[in-house]
């Protein structure tokens, strides 16, 4: 009976329109934020902070980006990693070439660069839909990686386009510990996630969903299809761009264009499908799932090997991972198209009725 909204009446539309309309949810989210911002940096070890939590947050941000485009605006993209690459390389170049530029400004500009590239490759969406568009976004994927590799300017003429991201400096303070980078990432991701949530519950988001669900009806309401689709491409790519910049600056440090390959694009797509198409929360759940699953498999493998006295052939785990990912995708599409986010919601509904199911 702890999770109950009974007695909480909404006296105004403002209250009804809150992101978390139920008091218990607000408390839970507050607690989660305190946990993430205060407890985790204190208790988590270096491995968890820099090898799991930081990339998890970064991928969640990329998944939010793709979710805006695919989940909300209905435009399937297979080029997510390319937009991340644009963000990473743009941020690197801004810091490199503009002396004294604050890192956050560089990130914002990186997002804008990614948005511009997104708009460019989004142009075909005005004339084509569905998997035609998906194929068109592959053009972005291959072209961007090629261009970043081929033109030395982007990587300050390093071999095969490898760049080493500069140090993160904020107000003269260098962020170089795992906990610092984690907090830096967390702050950006939390702010952008909130912004995304606000966008999708306002007229911009409704226009995206309208175009996704029934484009003719949307246009008859007066929604401009071109502007709406391109805004989705732009904002989605900006999110991916910032995620890419974080990937380089806060996670790996050294990246190359080839690292942002089609496989990475698929990975983010899987996060969206498994987490929940058209859900900001789902983007986090999906990212967590896809980041944690391989770690889980790799931890479980030696135990199983040991337990059964077997020797697994080399590459077994990575191939098994492919199969598990693929099978999960099919499973979720068939059984729960709204992904983990929906399961979470169902769980909450159950809890709301518990312990009296009627």
């Amino acid at each position, binding site marked *: 009976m702890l999770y109950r909204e009974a007695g909480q009446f909404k006296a105004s539309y403002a209250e009804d329109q809150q992101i978390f309309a139920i008091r218990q949810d607000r408390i839970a989210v507050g607690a989660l934020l305190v946990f993430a911002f205060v407890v985790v940096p204190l208790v988590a070890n270096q491995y968890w902070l820099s090898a799991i939590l930081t990339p998890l947050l970064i991928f969640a941000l990329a998944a939010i980006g793709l979710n805006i485009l695919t989940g909300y605006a209905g435009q399937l993209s297979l080029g997510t990693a390319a937009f991340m690459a644009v963000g990473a390389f743009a941020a690197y170049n801004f810091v490199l070439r503009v002396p004294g530029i604050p890192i956050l400004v560089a990130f914002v500009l990186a997002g804008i660069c990614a948005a511009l590239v997104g708009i460019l490759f989004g142009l075909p969406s005005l004339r084509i839909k569905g998997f035609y568009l998906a194929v068109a976004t592959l053009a972005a994927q291959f072209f961007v990686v090629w261009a970043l590799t081929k033109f030395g300017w982007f990587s300050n003429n390093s071999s095969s386009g490898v760049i080493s991201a500069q140090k993160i400096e904020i107000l003269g303070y260098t962020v170089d510990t795992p906990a610092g980078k984690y907090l830096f990432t967390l702050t950006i991701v939390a702010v952008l996630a909130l912004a995304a949530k606000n966008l999708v519950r306002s007229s911009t988001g409704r226009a995206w969903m309208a175009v996704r669900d029934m484009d*003719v009806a949307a246009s008859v309401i007066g929604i401009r299809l071109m502007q709406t689709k391109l805004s989705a491409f732009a904002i989605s790519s900006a999110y991916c761009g910032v995620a890419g910049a974080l990937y380089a600056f806060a996670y790996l440090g050294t990246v190359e264009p080839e690292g942002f390959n089609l496989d990475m694009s698929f990975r983010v797509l899987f996060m969206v499908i498994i987490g929940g198409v058209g859900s900001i929360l789902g983007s986090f759940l999906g990212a967590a799932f896809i980041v944690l699953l391989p770690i889980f498999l790799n931890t479980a493998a030696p135990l199983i090997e040991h337990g059964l006295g077997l020797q697994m052939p080399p590459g077994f785990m990575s191939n098994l991972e492919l199969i598990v990912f693929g099978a999960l995708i099919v499973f979720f599409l068939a059984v729960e198209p709204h992904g983990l986010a929906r399961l979470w919601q169902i769980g909450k509904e159950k809890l709301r009725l518990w312990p009296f199911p009627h």
Partner: protein
Amino acid sequence: MSFFFEVLIGGLLSGVMYSLVALGFVLIYKASGVFNFAQGAMVFFAALTFVGFLEMGVWFWFAFALTLGAMVVLGLATERIVLRPLVNQPQISLFMATIGLTFVLEGLAQLLWGSQPHGLDIGIQDEPLGWISDATGMNISKFDLAAAGIAAALVTSLALFFSRTRIGRALRAVADDHQAALAVGIPLQQIWGIVWTVAGFVALVAGMLWGARNGVQFALTFLALKALPVLILGGFESIPGAIVGGLIIGASEKLAEVYLGPYVGGGIEGWFPYVLALLFLLVRPEGLFGEKHIDRV
């Protein structure tokens, strides 16, 4: 000039092989409305399985038959496990499901046969044809020519299959209108089974040809992706479109690489077909052979 033609012909011939992969897409799309992203993975799976059997010492044709059998089982299983539960879902969900299938197939193939690349010898050498070189000074690969011949034969027989046989006609009926086909008693599931089998066969042939040329390795899956721009050019529903699209992509990417590549640092083959297809879409969104249509409301 003869160099230009050499590049052009080389491109056209490799284009035929793109057509071959694209054909698998078209078959499945026509019959079930599914854009099967996994076609490339099927090519890889087939090639790897075939090589695997060969390396176990199985006789060539027997290995061929075994692999074909595996592809049939795979096709039927896909129909059963992937497509049937997703029936009536939006096309885009089916498309994403086939991306999932792609991962399953790639993982499964390597789990069964290992991840290392294999050579494949199907008895035709990749060397210039002597008499053409002598007569014209152009180097045209014997292998490319043979592969193109095989692909052409396959395409022709498929075209005949669709226009002359009862099953073929039923297939076309299904492609035109699922509901109507069901209404006149065409067993949809059986048809889908057949289509996936044929697509598996096409994948096997494509896998053998590509594998013999470039080695059987993971990179095959990327080659197969090149079939996608082919489809955009030719339209998803048109067999002639797949063929012409393949030729255009094959020829233009080679010509672009040779004549444009040097100005921009080379390596443009990787993206040129996509960008070409994209530009083409801006001009003619319905594809080469598609018909313009206005959404009904």
